[in-house]
């Protein structure tokens, strides 16, 4: 082996090793963060944590029951608003989206997907908080729904496009009108994928804080009225983490662990749905 060949092979080995190290570092970051969440959060989680509302600063005990319920309400309402629009837009892109309008919608969806969520927050504030003069969970849900729509549109489109043409042709050949073919055959075949997309979208907005700062605002008490301020886990973590008390920091870690668990369950459920429908998965 000549010196030049040796050097080239050495370079190849070194660069391969470097790439492996870089990939390892990225995974390490995740392991470290999840590890810290469990190490610092798990010890503070007990029954009261899930069943009690926060106690005044300085006292120990209490929980984040109001924030957990609030998260479910705000995110659930957001899904109720966002899913029909997002999935419908995605169906449009897959069924009729080959024209100029389809291109525009697809492009706008991709661009909106990267919009800062805080900007959506102040837009929702302008429409729903400023005129009524009252912060509300509903405004927060609308902001989250807006974040969800472009994401859902694109994943739905992708999933529907995976449906083989032959299925559609078979339905049309049997005399099914287009709309029934679209809903009963195409959308149903892609249902697993669409549900996966929805779960992933919901998981992503469930952890959002910025768009809720000026809409849902947060609430120290237990509340289920969507016309009033409501606490969510993300808002609670922000307040606790930036506060001055050790007790609050402890609660912040525990709440973060719960929120992370919630998001992970949604993400894993999404994978599970896909696997159920498509055998071995990706």
């Amino acid at each position, binding site marked *: 082996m000549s010196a030049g060949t040796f050097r080239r092979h050495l*370079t*190849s080995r070194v*660069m*391969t090793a470097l*790439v*492996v190290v*870089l*990939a390892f*570092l*990225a*995974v390490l*970051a995740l392991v*470290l*963060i999840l590890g*810290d969440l469990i190490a*610092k959060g798990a010890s503070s989680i007990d029954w009261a944590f899930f069943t009690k509302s926060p106690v005044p600063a300085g006292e120990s005990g209490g929980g984040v029951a109001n924030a957990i319920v609030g998260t479910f309400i705000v995110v659930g309402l957001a899904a109720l608003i966002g899913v*029909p629009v997002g999935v*419908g*837009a995605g*169906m*449009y892109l*897959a069924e*009729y989206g080959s*024209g100029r*309008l389809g291109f525009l*919608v*697809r*492009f*706008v*969806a*991709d*661009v*909106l*997907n*990267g*919009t*800062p*969520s*805080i900007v959506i927050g*102040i*837009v929702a504030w302008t429409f729903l908080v400023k005129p009524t003069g009252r912060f509300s969970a509903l405004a927060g849900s609308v902001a989250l729904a807006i974040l969800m729509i*472009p994401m859902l549109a694109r994943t739905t*489109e992708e999933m529907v496009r995976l449906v083989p043409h032959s299925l559609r*042709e078979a339905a*049309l050949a049997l005399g099914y009108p*287009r*709309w029934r073919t679209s*809903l009963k055959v195409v959308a149903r075949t892609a249902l697993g994928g669409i549900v996966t997309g929805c779960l992933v979208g919901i*998981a992503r907005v469930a952890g959002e*804080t*910025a768009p809720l*700062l000026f809409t849902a605002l947060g609430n120290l008490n237990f509340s289920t009225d969507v016309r009033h301020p409501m606490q969510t886990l*993300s808002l609670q973590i*922000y307040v606790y*983490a930036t506060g001055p008390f050790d007790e609050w920091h402890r609660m912040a*870690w525990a709440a*973060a662990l719960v929120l*992370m668990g919630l*998001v992970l369950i949604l*993400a894993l459920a999404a994978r599970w749905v896909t696997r159920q429908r498509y055998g071995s998965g990706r």
Partner: protein
Amino acid sequence: MTTLPLEPVPPPLEQTTPSAEPRWRALRSVDRSDRIYRRILTTLALALPALILVILGVLFVSALPAVTRFGPSFLWTSTWDPVAEVYGAAPMIFGTLASSFLALLIAVPLALGVAIFLTEFSPRWLRQPVAFLVELLAAIPSVVYGLWGVFVLIPFLRSYVVPPLKAVLGWTPFFDGAFYGNSLLAGGIILAIMIVPYIAAVSREVLLAVPTSQREAALAMGATRWEAVRSAVLPYGRAGLIGAIILGLGRALGETMAVTMLIGNRHDIGLSVLQPAYTMAAAIANEFSEATTNMYLSALFEVGLILFVLTVVVNAIARILIWRVARGAAVGSKAL
């Protein structure tokens, strides 16, 4: 293609124009319900372009008082004085750009490392788990990153990273001054970890779209594995990779919570990464509820407008670059 090959469908562009409607109807007797169905879906799809216009409109109208009062100098003046009602966003714009570029500096090697590892070097059994773990980074909520940054990252930086950095590079303006924790460095590092999964996911899809024949051709010419990657794979996907990086930049520019908790929130322009700084998103998050006067509020809306336009432009560029490689694929939207 969504239209059926067996159906006599006019070319897609005509399909949406009214003039093509009679011909279409003559060829196939369209059920009325079909048209209603299509109209419903079209309406829902139109929500997206409408949304972007509404957002722009709201931001612009709300920012108008500040825009007319301060003019373009809003972009390059540094005074931010709510008492005197004088506002200039230069420190935030600087901080936004500085923290994002710092994040890219750290995230790009990591993310490209992940993407190259997964597509070129990884054993088959390791691909799925590593891809899943890196995508999980995108699932961690921003506020949790912030929490981790405040209580783990900053103490770590203070004890183990900053002292050696200062010892070696303390003479440069970039590592000048004392380190108190909340700083450009802390914000940049947390941003880097947050954007790695996005850049990695899109880069991976771009590299997967590179035909195997490219690699085989290079290897057949006697290239080593790394030479094949460097000379055949990376150049082929270059536009897409740049798109992936710009997409990551877009994410970094608009990230709010974690940065707000770590960057120090100081209206100041400094070169040192050890000093506190401010970003546009952080300013809105911090000051929006304190904005008691209309001009204060309007100035914050103008900051939001600048941020929105900036991210839209950055994202549009990224998408065009990615689409050129992986045509029409919704790459990146799946990242979780």
